[in-house]
């Protein structure tokens, strides 16, 4: 297998085409929803001047132009990052709203993956090495159960457990703590911001609050990746070089660590990347259960308030994230694998 620069170039071109398609698609989709953004932009006007005000707002938003012109303008603004202000929350720049929400969802999902990938690797590896044994016969159905647990249900149960134990895990961080320490979130990621601002208390508090939702999110990747690792390990144990090194007396530990685990890492990275984007969607749901701000709440409120700018940008953003992650993961896989030289 060789991946040339040409291949990567082609991939990026394809990704760009798909991104353009997604932007167009979401634009059309969102504009088809009822609710007139111009009315909202005009500030829900009443009385005699209303018609003119709405007309002005429509012109201001460019909604009076033919749809392909609108899409083109939007696309230009989208790629130059010049999207102006939110329609529903006057004074909130669209880009800022999306970045801060995204960061907060992203950090949650990231924590979930920091928890789940090592666990999945460990469980999958051992159940593959002891296939048919007791460990395996427990882990295998358990991983199916984990992968089929409804995330939001689990999140609710976790919340229930914490409610009963009177530990507050609601929200991103304690509002009082934030007020006392005069903490301000700039990026939307509380962990990052608190580190940058040297705010240990907020860091600890927000990290602790992140653990229960992260656990709920991590259940699916643990289940799915455990199964994946098991397959990959089983495959890699059949590799000639594993057999050859066994025959040369290489220790079991070395074989597992440097031969088996190392060989499955590229595939593991790829699939983790893929499932990361799914977990991002899971995180959007779990977030709302735990009362956290993020992509989920932003998207719902954007659609509810006919804030078409945020809604389209957000949908396109999620889809683009998916594509970028996919492309990146492919390239990353190529970098990890020494057989592939760019």
């Amino acid at each position, binding site marked *: 297998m060789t991946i040339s620069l040409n291949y990567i170039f082609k991939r990026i071109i394809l990704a760009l085409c798909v991104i353009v398609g997604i932007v167009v698609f979401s634009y059309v989709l969102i504009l088809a929803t009822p609710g007139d953004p111009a009315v909202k932009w005009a500030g829900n006007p009443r009385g005699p001047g209303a018609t003119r005000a709405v007309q002005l707002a429509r012109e201001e938003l460019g909604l009076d132009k033919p749809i392909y012109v609108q899409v083109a303008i939007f696309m230009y603004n989208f790629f130059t990052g010049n999207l102006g202000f939110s329609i529903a929350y006057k004074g909130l720049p669209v880009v800022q709203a999306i970045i801060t929400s995204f960061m907060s969802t992203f950090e949650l999902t990231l924590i979930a993956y920091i928890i789940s990938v090592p666990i999945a690797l460990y469980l999958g590896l051992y159940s593959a090495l002891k296939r048919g044994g007791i460990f395996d016969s427990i882990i295998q159905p358990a991983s199916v159960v984990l992968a089929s647990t409804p995330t939001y249900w689990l999140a609710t149960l976790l919340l229930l457990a914490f409610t009963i134990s009177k530990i507050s895990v609601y929200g991103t961080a304690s509002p009082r703590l934030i007020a006392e320490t005069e903490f301000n979130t700039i990026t939307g990621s509380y962990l990052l911001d608190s580190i940058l601002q040297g705010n240990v208390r907020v860091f600890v508090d927000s990290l602790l609050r992140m653990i229960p939702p992260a656990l709920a999110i991590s259940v699916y990747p643990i289940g799915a990746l455990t199964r994946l690792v098991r397959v990959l390990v089983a495959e890699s144990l059949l*590799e*000639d*070089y594993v*057999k*050859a*090194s*066994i*025959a*040369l*007396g*290489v*220790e079991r530990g*070395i074989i597992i660590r*440097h*031969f088996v685990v*190392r*060989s499955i890492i590229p595939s593991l990275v790829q699939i983790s990347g893929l499932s990361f984007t799914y977990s991002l969607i899971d995180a959007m749901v779990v977030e709302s259960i735990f009362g956290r701000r993020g992509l989920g709440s932003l998207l719902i409120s954007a659609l509810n308030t006919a804030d078409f700018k945020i809604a389209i940008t957000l949908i396109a953003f999620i889809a683009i994230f998916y594509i970028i992650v996919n492309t990146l993961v492919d390239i990353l896989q190529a970098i990890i*694998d*020494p*057989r592939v030289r760019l």
Partner: protein
Amino acid sequence: MVLAIVMENLKVGYIIEDEVFWAVKGVDLVVEEGTTLCIIGESGCGKSTLASAITGILPPYALTDGKLKLFDHVVINGQLRNYNGIRGKITAYIPQNPGTSLNPFLTVEEHFYYVLRSNFKSDREFSKKIAMEILPKVNLDSSVLEKYPHELSGGMQQRVIIALALATNAQILVADEPTSFIDAHLRLQIIELLGRLQREFKKTLIVITHDLLTTSTICDYIAIMYAGKIMEVGPREKVLRNPRHPYTKMLLETTPILGVKKRLKPIPGEPPSLGKEYQACLFLDRCPYKSKECYSDPQIQVIENSHFSKCWKALEAPWL
């Protein structure tokens, strides 16, 4: 005289889909220390399984019976297998496909390090020193140490593997079809290299091959294997010149000998399937010399010192 390998009625089989398939169906074989033995047979005759049995890489779903002794270690005794202290210490393995037999994620140096660390607890520097010593012996210079396997040619990969096997200091080297995956013009070179190393280091070398032509040049003894059993075994010259089994004879006829112009004859028919138990001679179906007695399992016939054949007609040898 020290016996390096002793097999007594060694059977190896696999469980596939709840059925047992015997690949090696009872082999009695003795290999002296410091000699080279070629095991020759068609594909599927169980020779690779035999190599796996010696080097300790039978998969966990393999079944064994009989006895295998490597020097003083009883490795296979009935169903029990114990390869502790064998792999890399007494036996080393040279696999058939060098392309897939080196870990693509490791450099050559790391290969040496891991092998030597496992066997001698040596550190990185020491293993590098050893590697530098051994590599010239396989006609490679030390620049390959930094390289990943895919950056080497097939012949170089094979030589790295041979060097790794040498580095283990194991007495018995088992080469499983060492030439089948490399370019034709390099085959002889590799074979000669193996032969030279065997002589230089006084190793016991087992070469598994279906390639009578090139391989036979380096070996002291030849064993002919067919359908999981050894048909004939003896010193090289004797087996080649004076085959005492119809299968050996026919095998020789399929092989071109350099400088001799002759018609190559293919062997008609198919080898018997592995799943079944046979009472008769295994070669029965394809043997042009069969007679009534061939319907019972043939006893081992001693032709002369260290030349044996498993054919009722070995002594008469009507094919000669």
